[in-house]
């Protein structure tokens, strides 16, 4: 039961772990932008996704994150992906990519629908992977410290930067606690005969309810207690405070962010200029034979 790893910090001592969290957050955001760029042709899109995948794979290798972890998290998303596919198939798509008829029933299945679904799946996987890298290699406290630093300019327009950072750090802090709690309640209900894995749909719903209700109640209770504890210690969000841990920018951070920026620049150029690398490669290869 205890194989839920989303958002859990895993203490190794890799280069990625030692990088400045500000760098990691910026790089992550840029990488996410990259996923949403559109290129001139379908093969080109998949080619770029493939490259991004390779980058992600290398980063995960360096950070000692096992690929299995990523896929175990995808399990929950299969239903969503399936629904997406159905919706995409039913809604009339873009005819320019062509279509075929579904076993002569007159129902047109557009290739664009299939491509779109595939894009979404790939994007989801890469996004999950990237956020996994961030949360597995960076302590929650570091993440919020970095966020607070990154959002500093917003203070000018009276945006409550510190409060937001605090809220996020609390939320992150409670992820492992809630996971432990989930595990505990699942076990407690299992000893009352709840079967979370097998059973009919109705039984499954009951099983989930028996988990969710106590989980929410304990979460609310915890948050109330925490608020009281903070107040009792005189926490004042508007007070000026110093930091125990100060972020340090190293050469490795400069290198990392440069690579990411070059990647960004390159891919945007490819996208805007509508350069089809795949077609070029294909034509080169063809001219050889």
């Amino acid at each position, binding site marked *: 039961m205890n194989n839920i790893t989303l958002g859990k910090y895993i203490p190794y001592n890799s280069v990625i772990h030692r990088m400045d969290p500000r760098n990691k957050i910026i790089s992550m955001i840029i990488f996410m932008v990259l996923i949403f760029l559109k290129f001139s042709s379908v093969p080109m899109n998949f080619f770029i996704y493939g490259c991004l995948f390779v980058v992600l794979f290398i980063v995960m290798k360096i950070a000692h994150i096992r690929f299995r972890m990523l896929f175990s998290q995808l399990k929950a998303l299969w239903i969503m992906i399936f629904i997406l596919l159905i919706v995409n198939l039913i809604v009339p798509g873009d005819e320019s990519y062509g279509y075929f008829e579904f076993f002569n029933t007159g129902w047109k299945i557009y290739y664009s629908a299939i491509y779109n679904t595939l894009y979404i799946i790939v994007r989801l996987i890469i996004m999950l992977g990237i956020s996994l890298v961030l949360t597995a290699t960076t302590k929650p406290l570091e993440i919020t410290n970095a966020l607070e630093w990154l959002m500093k300019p917003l203070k000018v327009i009276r945006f409550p930067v510190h409060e937001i950072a605090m809220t996020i750090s609390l939320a992150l802090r409670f992820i492992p606690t809630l996971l432990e709690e989930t595990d505990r309640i699942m076990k407690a209900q299992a*000893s*009352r005969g709840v*079967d979370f894995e097998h059973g009919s749909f109705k039984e499954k719903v009951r099983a989930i309810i*028996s988990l969710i209700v*106590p989980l929410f*109640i304990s979460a609310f209770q915890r948050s109330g207690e925490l608020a009281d504890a903070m107040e009792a210690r005189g926490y004042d969000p508007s007070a000026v405070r110093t930091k125990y841990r100060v972020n340090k920018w190293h050469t490795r951070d400069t290198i990392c962010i440069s690579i990411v920026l070059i990647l960004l620049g390159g891919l945007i150029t490819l996208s805007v200029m509508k350069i089809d690398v795949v077609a070029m490669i294909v034509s080169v290869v063809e001219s050889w034979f």
Partner: protein
Amino acid sequence: MPIKFSHLNYVYSKDTPLETAALHDINLDIIDGSFVCLVGHTGSGKSTLIQHINALLTPTSGSVDVNGIKVMNKKDKKGFLKSLSKEERKHQNIKEIRKNVGLVFQFPEYQLFEETVLKDVSFGPKNFGFSDEEAIKKAKESLKLVGIDESLYDKSPFELSGGQRRRVAIAGIISLNPDILILDEPTAGLDPQGSNEMMELFNILYKNGTTIIMVTHDMDIVIKYATDVIVLKKGDIILECKPHSLFLNDEILKELCVEEPKPISFAKDLIKNGMKISLENVKDTDTLIEEICKARVKYE
């Protein structure tokens, strides 16, 4: 339903940097009709040990045998099942264990979820295939046993006090009529009277033939109720004995950082000064007085 641990090891988060070995090579027999107390420092592996008995955790290696049903990890179990005939394989059902072994977790009040107390308590029996009426009947019986008033049956469990909620949660397990009842610090955080009532309830179940396995830090409970004591330290069983011999073993008492219960130290002093009473019979103040009377009678 005898329980047999053989060469059981358990490691949390195996193959990650967070790997912790919680139990090492545990060998243990628990016979029918015993009242076993598990003691040990915090983090010594008590909770981990008991969760194996109803297969909530599966051993990293080794096995637990509960009335012939083996709890093993997937790989070992596969091999084990292969060695059985078809008939025997049918018997190896984990759900069967869960039905016969009731486990009450530490702070069980956090597992309540139904709209009413009665519904919550009958949830377990229903899961194990009893009809609605039977489940309700069982629920009412066990609520009565734990001392929850009938006027509370239709209340939401979240409107009750902490102590009442604990009772309801325990009733939720007792309603399964388990042959083995495992309790993880059931009296933690209760007032002395509530704690006594709770213990008396478990004692009644014990007298009715239920095997009780209890994790506790309270030596008064150990001496009063236990038939056997198991002392855990950092994942090893360092002592298995009768309760009174625990209090003759100064080393262990020091190790556990506990004071002996008052009646015991009193009795020990009396023995030291020449009074002939048998320490095995001293369980609480009442039995101590009885022993003293007996000794006096002999003396006169």
